[in-house]
């Protein structure tokens, strides 16, 4: 282990940020030192000017580019529309919506088994790992002896949630996901932001993950 460690460091040319440590398991995982210069200008005048510059540039683009683009293309139609959309900085929400990245963390959902039952086995890993203490689970005994345990109550307070995604990381059976790409809804009362088991399952779909992972497991059908 130690020899490969040394090899990785010597092979890496000494440029870029200073490498403090490299994982012995994966050389791509490393601790680097990030040099942050002292903030000399505490009035932020330069930064303000830069920011204003960006705003003005966007304003100019919004004002001028669409017409120019269409004229430059000289053909109109779909292609012009695409160009128009790509160039302009302002999004006409809610008619027009930004496509979120694939890994955007939206509202939670609870995944389902093939028969539509909740996949969660109330192992309490997500409330344990949750830094905001926003998950409440009350376990109960399942009527199915091969499942044993299931949540009687599963509540997530979306106002408390800090959208860190650790619950999804902690889940051992693909029962909770944050891939809905939905925002937390605006609410008038705080309690309305508490998602219960039914609403979380309402967004859920049947998971294709193998319960217990792949390969022969203790619950293989004989």
């Amino acid at each position, binding site marked *: 282990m130690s020899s490969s460690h040394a090899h990785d460091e010597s092979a890496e040319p000494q440029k870029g940020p200073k490498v403090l440590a490299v994982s012995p398991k994966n050389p791509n995982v490393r601790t680097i030192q990030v040099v942050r210069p002292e903030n000399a200008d505490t009035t932020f005048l330069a930064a303000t000017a830069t920011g204003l510059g960006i705003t003005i540039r966007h304003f100019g683009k919004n004002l001028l580019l669409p017409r120019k683009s269409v004229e430059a293309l000289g053909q109109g139609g779909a292609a012009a529309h695409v160009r128009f959309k790509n160039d302009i900085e302002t999004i006409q929400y809610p008619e027009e919506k930004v496509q979120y990245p694939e890994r955007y963390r939206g509202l939670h959902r609870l995944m389902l088994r093939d028969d539509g039952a909740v996949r969660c086995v109330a192992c309490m890993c997500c409330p344990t790992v949750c830094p905001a203490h926003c998950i409440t689970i009350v*376990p109960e*005994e399942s009527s199915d002896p091969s499942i044993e345990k299931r949540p009687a109550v599963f509540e997530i307070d979306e106002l408390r949630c800090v959208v860190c995604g650790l619950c999804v990381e902690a889940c051992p059976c693909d029962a909770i996901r944050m891939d809905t790409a939905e925002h937390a809804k605006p609410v008038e009362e705080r309690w309305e932001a508490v998602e219960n088991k039914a609403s979380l399952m309402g967004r859920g779909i049947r998971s294709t993950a193998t319960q217990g992972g792949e390969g022969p497991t203790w619950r293989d059908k004989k």
Partner: protein
Amino acid sequence: MSESTPAAPSNMVTLTIDGQTVAVPKGTNVLEAARTLGTDISAFCYHPGLSIAACCRQCLVSIEKNPKLQPSCQSAVAEGMVVHTKDPQSTLARKQMLEFTLVNHPIDCPICDKAGECTLQKLYFDHDNANSRVDTPKVHKDKAVDLGPTVVLDQERCILCTRCIRVCDEVAGVHQLEMSQRGDHETLGTAPGAKLDNPYSLNVVDVCPVGALTAKDFRFTMRAWELEATPSICQGCATGCNLEIHHKNERAWRLIPRHNDDVNQYWMCDDGRFTYRDLREERLAVATVGGLPSGWDRALARAGERLAAVLKQSSSLGVVLSATHSNEDNFALAMLAKAWGAGRIFLGARAAVPERADDKLRDADVNPNTAGVNAIAKALGLTLGSGADLEEAVNAGAVHAVVVLGDALNVSEQALARLAEIEVIAIASHERGVVKQAKVALPVAAWAELAGTVTNRKGLVQRMHAAFPPPGQAIPGWEAVVRLAGATGVKFSWTHAREVFKDMTGKVSELSGHTWVREARPLQLRFAGSRG
């Protein structure tokens, strides 16, 4: 040999473990000898409170001059023995034993109640931490088998260590569990015609190194790693078993025995374990006057007013000490009774249950502190009347007012009805029995919520620690006594249970020499390693 080493007494044996020399008493096994050096040899079937089976082979070590590896739990120490616990041969053997143990274990930790305090889980991370190399299906057995009124068995999780069988045989003294079949089809179950229904049945859950045996009472309620443990003393009977309160969110979730060779070794009875339920039932959380919630100020004013009238003729005042309350509470009230010059002092206690007594841990006296109250009364020169005496005094009209500590009186229904007619001032944690009829009821902390001491049947003074704060307006019992004393013009200077205790050790000879044990910080079970 021992003559040549005068430093070691003749009953001590000196041996070398991993290059360190250690002297242990003759008859100790190698595993225990290693533990005295801080070397924890992994083991499943070995339990210090049980006989030795050496069937898990998880504690193999190399002992020089032995041709093969030896189970350290079964090898008695010998003079000059040289043991290696960390050499490649024995380390590999233990790692491979663990791999064999895991062959048929359903790695269902997410739904297993033992997860977080499981010996198998801990040893896996300590020793092996490798992926399974087994590609054949696991042997399937029955899940969620009902063994009796208290315990559920998962046969697949069982690693066949036989600890539970030995607990039933050696602690409870009944053979109710048994292994059947052979090889990897070996299965734990109840003995033919038997149910796991002995009064010590839940000890099998404690000793189970995996999650095969789970308590119905605790199953699926809470994960072990979420709980905190505070040491205390069982209030179920006069034995005073040492226990840990496992609590979370200001609520006790289970009671687990704590090792004490002088009292309960590693064990505890089922009744004692269920006493935690009482901490949330029928609690008196607010001071009441005439059965209605009122608050401390009004309750004390009312009590002071009534007591002032009665104290003009103090022989008609009765005071009831409680065998269910701590020494501090009783000492404070006894001192107050002396200051008042109360005419009659009684002992309030739960009625004895002779059928529950055995020669192990269960006592017929279901009060935790009978010995302590008697010692305090004797030292202060007070004569304690029994429940029958109280009944007689009430019926004869000899007492016009009674100050009662606790809710247990051991009197008949008729006497309770008579008590409702006279002035009863109750200092109690639960609203039941005489407290329901009290003219004034002052709420106090129950045993899991206070710092104090109780004296068990052997005269051992044991310390209870507060696991969580008392509900509502409740305060420690001695403090309620101090407030009540203030309402009648008697001043006590105690500000902490420690000061009451210190005062008490000076006056009560049974307690002299005892020192106040420092408050225990709750231990978070997520850092406690394995249990069982």
